[in-house]
């Protein structure tokens, strides 16, 4: 417990190296997009963080179900770890998207399905942490957290489809020509390299942070138990 596993240390180092390479690929290696200019380069990190955040939210919903069935606090700690890391990544996604939107759409924000769903999702998981903060008993905290993460995890995709009833201007970069989308572009081969490398990098970083956060949760649990024992 105290000593960090070697694999995790290696993963830490690998994450940093990959982040460096990915940044190089995105900023230098990939060609400048002709219509939008340099700002298009935030897209690599935008997609990288978005993909991992969604992965984390889906994992969290799965952990909810497992916890509710097995009632083992281990799954609760996994869930908190997944949601916390995803919340940070998703925040980066939203900010990067907004920065990109300013020159591309001429506005920081539009109420388009993806943007609105992103904002609502972020709020759901902030509410999740507010709920947990108000509960002292670890078992109850875990149960309520799991229920809320499940309800939230189901509601977020429905929100997305609900807003899809309206028109979107968000470009669909992968798979599909969206005639209405403004600011879409097609990727050159070098852009693709940077793009897939960013996806890979952020997946590794996510695993690394997720693992570290689980260890933090384990430590928290240990301290709490010892506190109970000492004050008894």
């Amino acid at each position: 417990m105290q000593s960090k596993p070697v694999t995790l240390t290696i993963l830490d180092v690998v994450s940093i190296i990959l982040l460096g390479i990915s940044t190089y690929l995105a900023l230098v290696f990939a060609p400048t997009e002709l219509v939008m200019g340099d700002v298009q380069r935030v897209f690599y990190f935008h997609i990288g963080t978005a993909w991992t955040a969604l992965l984390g939210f889906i994992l969290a919903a799965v952990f909810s179900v497992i916890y509710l069935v097995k009632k083992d606090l281990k799954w609760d700690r996994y869930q908190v770890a997944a949601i916390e890391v995803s919340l940070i990544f998703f925040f980066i996604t939203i900010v990067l998207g907004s920065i990109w939107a300013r020159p591309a759409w001429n506005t920081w924000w539009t109420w388009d399905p993806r943007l609105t769903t992103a904002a609502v999702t972020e709020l759901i998981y902030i509410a999740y942490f507010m709920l947990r903060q108000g509960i002292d008993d670890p078992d109850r905290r875990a149960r309520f957290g799991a229920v809320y993460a499940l309800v939230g995890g189901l509601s977020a995709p429905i929100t997305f489809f609900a807003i899809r009833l309206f028109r979107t201007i968000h470009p669909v970069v992968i798979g599909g020509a969206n005639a209405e989308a403004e600011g879409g572009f097609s990727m050159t081969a070098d852009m693709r390299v940077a793009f897939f490398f960013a996806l890979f990098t952020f997946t590794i970083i996510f695993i690394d942070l997720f693992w570290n956060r689980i260890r933090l949760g384990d430590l928290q649990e240990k301290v709490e138990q010892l506190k109970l024992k000492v004050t008894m």
Partner: protein
Amino acid sequence: MANGQPNAQPPSGNFIKAVSAVVWKDLQAEFRSRELFSAMLVFSLLIILIFNFALELDVETRRSVTSGVLWATFAFAGTLGLNRSMAIEKDRGCLDGLLLAPVDRSAIYFGKVISNLAFMLIVEIIVLPVYSVLYNINLFQPGLLMVILLGSIGYVGVGTLLSTMSVQTRTRDILLPILLFPVVVPVLLAAVKASNGFLEGLELSEFLLPINLLIAYDIIFIAVAFMVFDNVVEE
């Protein structure tokens, strides 16, 4: 759950009996005090009044924002009702009493949903004619009423589950809207869109999708709440 008690009656009959007992208890208590109902109603009317100042509801704007104003009003008044109805249970120790009763816990959930829904619908039934008179719009259309019913079911179904959780936390007075609003966004969206369709007299096919979405949401979330309710009342 699964207390394995031999039931003299068939389980389904027992379940319905338990649900109606919870509903009856709530309605009777409310009938005596009328505090929940009057608070929700006055609050709703105040919200409509505030919207009047905030949006300058002249004839032109009114047409486009009516459904939005109505659903915002219902959503805010709804949290007031949900919070209070669950807080009463908690404070008077009723919840513990209910949990001791040898009935399936989900019976408590359905009982609370039905009584919360009843309060909400009564408030809505009074708000609608008042709004109609104040702003000279006929809101009594069967389609619109159906949308309001469907929307309220989804809202209360999720709201009852979440309010059961929120009253058991330290921050109980402020937590419910924060938990509930981001999760019921689809209900509000679809309900506003469908209501708008009816109010503007569009073809049904143009806004069938939001109505279907409301129905799907109601079914999914009531089913989920039914499955997980045990976890939010367990001691």
